[in-house]
Protein backbone atom coordinates (compact mmCIF):
# COMPACT_ATOMS: atom_id res chain seq x y z
CA UNK A 1 0.00 0.00 0.00
CA UNK A 2 2.79 2.38 0.95
CA UNK A 3 4.75 1.48 -2.18
CA UNK A 4 1.65 2.27 -4.23
CA UNK A 5 1.29 5.64 -2.57
CA UNK A 6 4.98 6.44 -3.04
CA UNK A 7 4.57 5.69 -6.73
CA UNK A 8 1.60 8.02 -7.01
CA UNK A 9 3.45 10.77 -5.18
CA UNK A 10 6.43 10.46 -7.50
CA UNK A 11 4.20 10.65 -10.54
CA UNK A 12 2.39 13.69 -9.17
CA UNK A 13 5.67 15.43 -8.54
CA UNK A 14 6.74 14.76 -12.09
CA UNK A 15 3.40 15.93 -13.44
CA UNK A 16 3.59 19.19 -11.50
CA UNK A 17 7.16 19.99 -12.58
CA UNK A 18 7.66 18.37 -15.94
CA UNK A 19 11.19 17.88 -17.11
CA UNK A 20 12.34 17.47 -20.66
CA UNK A 21 12.87 13.74 -20.47
CA UNK A 22 9.40 13.12 -19.14
CA UNK A 23 7.54 15.41 -21.54
CA UNK A 24 9.44 13.94 -24.44
CA UNK A 25 8.47 10.44 -23.52
CA UNK A 26 4.92 10.94 -22.25
CA UNK A 27 3.36 9.50 -25.35
CA UNK A 28 5.72 6.55 -25.34
CA UNK A 29 4.92 5.83 -21.71
CA UNK A 30 1.21 6.16 -22.36
CA UNK A 31 0.70 8.28 -19.25
CA UNK A 32 -0.64 11.50 -20.75
CA UNK A 33 -4.31 10.82 -20.24
CA UNK A 34 -4.92 8.64 -17.20
CA UNK A 35 -2.52 10.41 -14.78
CA UNK A 36 -4.59 11.47 -11.79
CA UNK A 37 -3.42 14.15 -9.37
CA UNK A 38 -5.90 13.33 -6.58
CA UNK A 39 -4.44 11.28 -3.79
CA UNK A 40 -6.41 8.34 -2.52
CA UNK A 41 -5.84 6.75 0.82
CA UNK A 42 -6.97 3.25 1.53
CA UNK A 43 -8.35 4.26 4.95
CA UNK A 44 -11.75 5.39 6.11
CA UNK A 45 -12.54 7.86 8.89
CA UNK A 46 -15.44 7.42 11.23
CA UNK A 47 -17.28 9.72 13.56
CA UNK A 48 -16.94 8.93 17.25
CA UNK A 49 -18.53 10.55 20.26
CA UNK A 50 -16.65 13.11 22.34
CA UNK A 51 -16.50 10.68 25.27
CA UNK A 52 -14.97 7.98 23.07
CA UNK A 53 -12.45 10.47 21.73
CA UNK A 54 -11.40 11.39 25.26
CA UNK A 55 -11.09 7.73 26.21
CA UNK A 56 -8.94 7.15 23.12
CA UNK A 57 -6.78 10.12 24.02
CA UNK A 58 -6.32 8.87 27.57
CA UNK A 59 -5.36 5.46 26.19
CA UNK A 60 -2.87 7.02 23.78
CA UNK A 61 -1.29 8.97 26.62
CA UNK A 62 -0.44 5.74 28.37
CA UNK A 63 1.91 4.98 25.48
CA UNK A 64 4.02 8.03 26.21
CA UNK A 65 7.38 7.32 27.81
CA UNK A 66 7.51 7.78 31.56
CA UNK A 67 9.67 10.70 32.54
CA UNK A 68 11.95 11.33 34.34
CA UNK A 69 13.61 7.97 34.00
CA UNK A 70 15.56 6.59 36.96
CA UNK A 71 18.55 5.60 34.84
CA UNK A 72 19.34 9.05 33.44
CA UNK A 73 20.59 10.54 36.70
CA UNK A 74 23.87 10.43 38.54
CA UNK A 75 24.12 7.13 40.42
CA UNK A 76 24.68 8.80 43.78
CA UNK A 77 21.47 10.76 43.49
CA UNK A 78 19.32 7.85 42.37
CA UNK A 79 20.63 4.83 44.25
CA UNK A 80 22.32 6.33 47.30
CA UNK A 81 20.20 9.45 47.63
CA UNK A 82 19.62 10.46 51.24
CA UNK A 83 15.95 11.31 50.87
CA UNK A 84 15.07 8.01 49.18
CA UNK A 85 16.86 6.00 51.88
CA UNK A 86 15.32 8.17 54.57
CA UNK A 87 11.96 7.01 53.31
CA UNK A 88 13.04 3.39 52.87
CA UNK A 89 14.60 3.09 56.35
CA UNK A 90 11.73 5.01 57.91
CA UNK A 91 9.05 2.82 56.40
CA UNK A 92 11.03 -0.30 57.34
CA UNK A 93 11.24 0.82 60.98
CA UNK A 94 7.65 2.06 61.16
CA UNK A 95 6.40 -0.92 59.19
CA UNK A 96 8.13 -3.19 61.69
CA UNK A 97 6.51 -1.30 64.56
CA UNK A 98 3.06 -1.51 62.94
CA UNK A 99 3.41 -5.24 62.27
CA UNK A 100 4.72 -5.98 65.77
CA UNK A 101 2.07 -3.84 67.49
CA UNK A 102 -0.77 -5.44 65.53
CA UNK A 103 0.63 -8.89 66.26
CA UNK A 104 0.92 -7.96 69.96
CA UNK A 105 -2.74 -6.94 70.02
CA UNK A 106 -3.98 -10.19 68.45
CA UNK A 107 -1.44 -12.36 70.32
CA UNK A 108 -3.85 -13.37 73.13
CA UNK A 109 -6.44 -14.43 70.55
CA UNK A 110 -3.91 -16.33 68.45
CA UNK A 111 -2.05 -17.81 71.40
CA UNK A 112 1.29 -16.17 70.63
CA UNK A 113 3.73 -15.01 73.29
CA UNK A 114 5.00 -11.56 72.36
CA UNK A 115 5.46 -10.06 75.83
CA UNK A 116 8.92 -8.64 76.57
CA UNK A 117 10.05 -11.55 78.78
CA UNK A 118 9.40 -14.24 76.16
CA UNK A 119 10.83 -12.09 73.37
CA UNK A 120 14.05 -11.56 75.33
CA UNK A 121 14.23 -15.28 76.18
CA UNK A 122 13.69 -16.28 72.55
CA UNK A 123 16.29 -13.80 71.34
CA UNK A 124 18.78 -14.89 73.97
CA UNK A 125 18.52 -18.49 72.78
CA UNK A 126 19.76 -17.56 69.27
CA UNK A 127 23.37 -18.18 68.21
CA UNK A 128 25.71 -15.20 68.52
CA UNK A 129 26.03 -14.57 64.76
CA UNK A 130 22.25 -14.55 64.31
CA UNK A 131 21.89 -12.14 67.24
CA UNK A 132 24.43 -9.76 65.74
CA UNK A 133 22.90 -9.98 62.26
CA UNK A 134 19.37 -9.32 63.54
CA UNK A 135 20.57 -6.44 65.71
CA UNK A 136 22.42 -4.88 62.77
CA UNK A 137 19.32 -5.34 60.62
CA UNK A 138 17.44 -3.15 63.10
CA UNK A 139 20.32 -0.88 64.13
CA UNK A 140 21.49 0.24 60.70
CA UNK A 141 18.10 1.62 59.50
CA UNK A 142 17.68 3.27 62.91
CA UNK A 143 21.12 4.88 62.72
CA UNK A 144 20.63 5.98 59.13
CA UNK A 145 17.18 7.43 59.74
CA UNK A 146 18.31 9.23 62.90
CA UNK A 147 21.48 10.78 61.45
CA UNK A 148 20.01 11.59 58.06
CA UNK A 149 16.90 12.92 59.80
CA UNK A 150 19.04 15.51 61.55
CA UNK A 151 20.63 16.36 58.18
CA UNK A 152 17.18 16.84 56.68
CA UNK A 153 16.12 19.07 59.56
CA UNK A 154 19.22 21.15 58.85
CA UNK A 155 18.18 21.31 55.18
CA UNK A 156 14.72 22.44 56.30
CA UNK A 157 16.30 25.28 58.27
CA UNK A 158 18.20 26.28 55.13
CA UNK A 159 21.66 24.91 56.04
CA UNK A 160 23.93 22.69 53.97
CA UNK A 161 22.51 23.43 50.55
CA UNK A 162 25.83 23.96 48.78
CA UNK A 163 26.16 21.32 46.09
CA UNK A 164 29.49 20.03 47.43
CA UNK A 165 28.06 19.92 50.94
CA UNK A 166 25.06 17.87 49.84
CA UNK A 167 27.28 15.34 48.02
CA UNK A 168 29.81 15.14 50.85
CA UNK A 169 27.32 14.83 53.71
CA UNK A 170 25.41 12.29 51.62
CA UNK A 171 28.46 10.00 51.77
CA UNK A 172 29.21 10.83 55.43
CA UNK A 173 25.71 9.68 56.34
CA UNK A 174 26.40 6.26 54.83
CA UNK A 175 29.70 5.91 56.68
CA UNK A 176 28.35 7.13 60.00
CA UNK A 177 25.23 4.96 59.80
CA UNK A 178 27.16 1.79 58.98
CA UNK A 179 29.70 2.39 61.75
CA UNK A 180 26.91 3.41 64.14
CA UNK A 181 24.82 0.37 63.20
CA UNK A 182 27.80 -1.94 63.77
CA UNK A 183 28.52 -0.28 67.12
CA UNK A 184 24.91 -0.57 68.28
CA UNK A 185 24.71 -4.18 67.11
CA UNK A 186 28.01 -5.51 68.46
CA UNK A 187 29.30 -3.20 71.20
CA UNK A 188 26.19 -2.18 73.09
Amino acid at each position, binding site marked *: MIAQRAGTTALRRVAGKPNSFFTANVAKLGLAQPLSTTQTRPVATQKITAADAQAL*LAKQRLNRPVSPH*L*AIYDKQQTWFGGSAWQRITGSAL*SGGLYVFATAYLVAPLAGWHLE*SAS*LAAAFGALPLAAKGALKFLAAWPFAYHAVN*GVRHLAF*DLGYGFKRQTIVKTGWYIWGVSVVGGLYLAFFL
Partner: protein
Amino acid sequence: MMASIARSSLLRQVALVPKLPIATRLASQQSAIVNAARVATFHTTARRDLLPPLPQRVEGTVNDAAPVPETSPSHGSYHWTFDRLVAASLIPLTVAPFAAGSLNPTLDALLCATILIHSHTGFQNIIIDYVPKYRTPRARKLFVWGLNAATVVVGLALYEFETTDVGVTETIKRIWTA
Protein backbone atom coordinates in the same frame (compact mmCIF):
# COMPACT_ATOMS: atom_id res chain seq x y z
CA MET B 1 -6.01 -30.83 32.55
CA MET B 2 -2.87 -32.37 33.98
CA ALA B 3 -1.00 -31.90 30.75
CA SER B 4 -1.80 -28.20 30.55
CA ILE B 5 -0.59 -27.61 34.11
CA ALA B 6 2.58 -29.61 33.62
CA ARG B 7 3.51 -27.92 30.40
CA SER B 8 5.16 -24.56 30.84
CA SER B 9 3.83 -21.54 29.04
CA LEU B 10 7.03 -21.33 27.00
CA LEU B 11 6.56 -24.88 25.77
CA ARG B 12 2.97 -24.09 24.92
CA GLN B 13 4.04 -21.07 22.94
CA VAL B 14 6.58 -23.15 21.05
CA ALA B 15 3.88 -25.71 20.32
CA LEU B 16 1.63 -22.96 18.95
CA VAL B 17 4.20 -21.69 16.44
CA PRO B 18 2.98 -22.62 12.95
CA LYS B 19 5.08 -25.21 11.22
CA LEU B 20 6.85 -23.08 8.60
CA PRO B 21 9.74 -24.15 6.44
CA ILE B 22 13.05 -23.16 8.04
CA ALA B 23 13.96 -20.83 5.18
CA THR B 24 10.72 -18.81 5.62
CA ARG B 25 11.20 -18.64 9.38
CA LEU B 26 14.76 -17.40 8.99
CA ALA B 27 13.64 -14.78 6.49
CA SER B 28 10.92 -13.51 8.82
CA GLN B 29 13.39 -13.36 11.72
CA GLN B 30 15.80 -11.43 9.55
CA SER B 31 13.15 -8.92 8.55
CA ALA B 32 12.14 -8.51 12.21
CA ILE B 33 15.76 -7.75 13.10
CA VAL B 34 16.09 -5.24 10.27
CA ASN B 35 12.81 -3.55 11.31
CA ALA B 36 13.92 -3.38 14.93
CA ALA B 37 17.21 -1.81 13.87
CA ARG B 38 15.34 0.70 11.74
CA VAL B 39 13.08 1.66 14.65
CA ALA B 40 15.98 1.70 17.11
CA THR B 41 17.75 4.45 15.18
CA PHE B 42 14.98 6.82 16.27
CA HIS B 43 15.30 5.92 19.96
CA THR B 44 18.19 7.17 22.05
CA THR B 45 17.33 5.10 25.13
CA ALA B 46 15.84 1.67 25.54
CA ARG B 47 12.26 1.56 26.71
CA ARG B 48 11.96 -0.02 30.13
CA ASP B 49 8.60 -0.26 31.82
CA LEU B 50 10.03 0.18 35.31
CA LEU B 51 7.25 2.42 36.52
CA PRO B 52 4.33 2.04 34.12
CA PRO B 53 2.01 5.05 34.07
CA LEU B 54 -1.15 4.87 36.15
CA PRO B 55 -4.55 5.12 34.47
CA GLN B 56 -5.37 8.62 33.38
CA ARG B 57 -8.27 10.70 32.12
CA VAL B 58 -8.41 14.12 30.53
CA GLU B 59 -10.33 16.78 32.47
CA GLY B 60 -12.14 19.20 30.17
CA THR B 61 -10.27 19.53 26.88
CA VAL B 62 -6.60 18.92 26.16
CA ASN B 63 -5.98 22.66 25.94
CA ASP B 64 -7.17 23.44 29.47
CA ALA B 65 -4.45 24.34 31.96
CA ALA B 66 -3.83 21.98 34.86
CA PRO B 67 -6.08 22.96 37.76
CA VAL B 68 -4.31 24.70 40.64
CA PRO B 69 -5.37 23.12 43.93
CA GLU B 70 -6.96 25.25 46.63
CA THR B 71 -4.36 26.54 49.03
CA SER B 72 -4.79 25.53 52.65
CA PRO B 73 -2.20 26.19 55.36
CA SER B 74 -3.47 23.28 57.46
CA HIS B 75 -2.60 20.94 54.58
CA GLY B 76 0.47 22.96 53.68
CA SER B 77 2.79 25.08 55.79
CA TYR B 78 1.21 24.34 59.21
CA HIS B 79 1.27 20.62 58.46
CA TRP B 80 4.88 20.86 57.25
CA THR B 81 5.96 22.76 60.38
CA PHE B 82 4.08 20.31 62.62
CA ASP B 83 5.86 17.39 60.90
CA ARG B 84 9.25 19.04 61.51
CA LEU B 85 8.46 19.77 65.17
CA VAL B 86 7.46 16.15 65.72
CA ALA B 87 10.64 14.94 64.01
CA ALA B 88 12.82 17.35 65.99
CA SER B 89 11.18 16.40 69.30
CA LEU B 90 12.17 12.79 68.60
CA ILE B 91 15.86 13.72 68.89
CA PRO B 92 15.96 14.27 72.69
CA LEU B 93 13.47 11.44 73.24
CA THR B 94 15.78 9.09 71.30
CA VAL B 95 19.02 10.26 72.90
CA ALA B 96 17.65 10.19 76.48
CA PRO B 97 17.38 6.38 76.92
CA PHE B 98 20.95 5.97 75.61
CA ALA B 99 22.16 8.56 78.13
CA ALA B 100 20.05 7.47 81.10
CA GLY B 101 19.91 3.71 80.47
CA SER B 102 16.12 3.69 80.15
CA LEU B 103 13.09 5.97 80.19
CA ASN B 104 10.51 6.50 82.92
CA PRO B 105 6.98 5.39 81.97
CA THR B 106 5.76 8.90 81.15
CA LEU B 107 8.63 9.67 78.80
CA ASP B 108 8.38 6.20 77.30
CA ALA B 109 4.68 6.77 76.56
CA LEU B 110 5.55 10.17 75.11
CA LEU B 111 8.19 8.57 72.88
CA CYS B 112 5.67 5.96 71.69
CA ALA B 113 3.04 8.60 70.94
CA THR B 114 5.51 10.79 69.06
CA ILE B 115 6.82 7.84 67.04
CA LEU B 116 3.23 6.90 66.22
CA ILE B 117 2.44 10.41 64.92
CA HIS B 118 5.75 10.54 63.04
CA SER B 119 5.05 7.14 61.43
CA HIS B 120 1.48 8.07 60.57
CA THR B 121 2.41 11.32 58.82
CA GLY B 122 5.35 9.58 57.14
CA PHE B 123 3.08 6.88 55.72
CA GLN B 124 0.60 9.60 54.73
CA ASN B 125 3.32 11.35 52.73
CA ILE B 126 4.18 8.10 50.97
CA ILE B 127 0.53 7.49 50.05
CA ILE B 128 0.10 11.07 48.83
CA ASP B 129 3.20 10.72 46.64
CA TYR B 130 2.61 7.31 45.11
CA VAL B 131 -1.20 6.97 45.03
CA PRO B 132 -2.28 10.20 43.34
CA LYS B 133 -5.88 11.22 43.92
CA TYR B 134 -6.52 12.35 40.34
CA ARG B 135 -5.43 9.04 38.85
CA THR B 136 -6.46 6.40 41.36
CA PRO B 137 -9.10 8.04 43.58
CA ARG B 138 -10.52 4.78 44.92
CA ALA B 139 -7.14 3.26 45.76
CA ARG B 140 -6.20 6.53 47.44
CA LYS B 141 -9.26 6.42 49.66
CA LEU B 142 -8.60 2.77 50.48
CA PHE B 143 -4.97 3.42 51.44
CA VAL B 144 -5.74 6.53 53.49
CA TRP B 145 -8.47 4.82 55.51
CA GLY B 146 -6.45 1.63 55.77
CA LEU B 147 -3.62 3.68 57.29
CA ASN B 148 -6.02 5.45 59.66
CA ALA B 149 -7.35 2.08 60.84
CA ALA B 150 -3.83 0.66 61.21
CA THR B 151 -2.70 3.66 63.25
CA VAL B 152 -5.68 3.30 65.60
CA VAL B 153 -4.88 -0.42 66.03
CA VAL B 154 -1.19 0.32 66.67
CA GLY B 155 -2.09 3.09 69.12
CA LEU B 156 -4.29 0.66 71.02
CA ALA B 157 -1.55 -1.97 70.98
CA LEU B 158 1.06 0.50 72.23
CA TYR B 159 -1.32 1.54 75.03
CA GLU B 160 -1.73 -2.12 75.95
CA PHE B 161 2.01 -2.69 75.80
CA GLU B 162 2.83 0.40 77.87
CA THR B 163 0.27 -0.39 80.54
CA THR B 164 0.78 -4.15 80.90
CA ASP B 165 4.45 -4.66 79.96
CA VAL B 166 7.72 -2.96 80.87
CA GLY B 167 7.70 -0.25 78.21
CA VAL B 168 9.23 -0.01 74.75
CA THR B 169 12.73 1.24 75.62
CA GLU B 170 13.10 -1.25 78.47
CA THR B 171 11.92 -4.09 76.18
CA ILE B 172 14.43 -3.16 73.49
CA LYS B 173 17.15 -3.00 76.13
CA ARG B 174 16.27 -6.44 77.50
CA ILE B 175 16.17 -8.00 74.03
CA TRP B 176 19.38 -6.22 73.04
CA THR B 177 21.31 -7.51 76.06
CA ALA B 178 19.71 -10.97 76.09
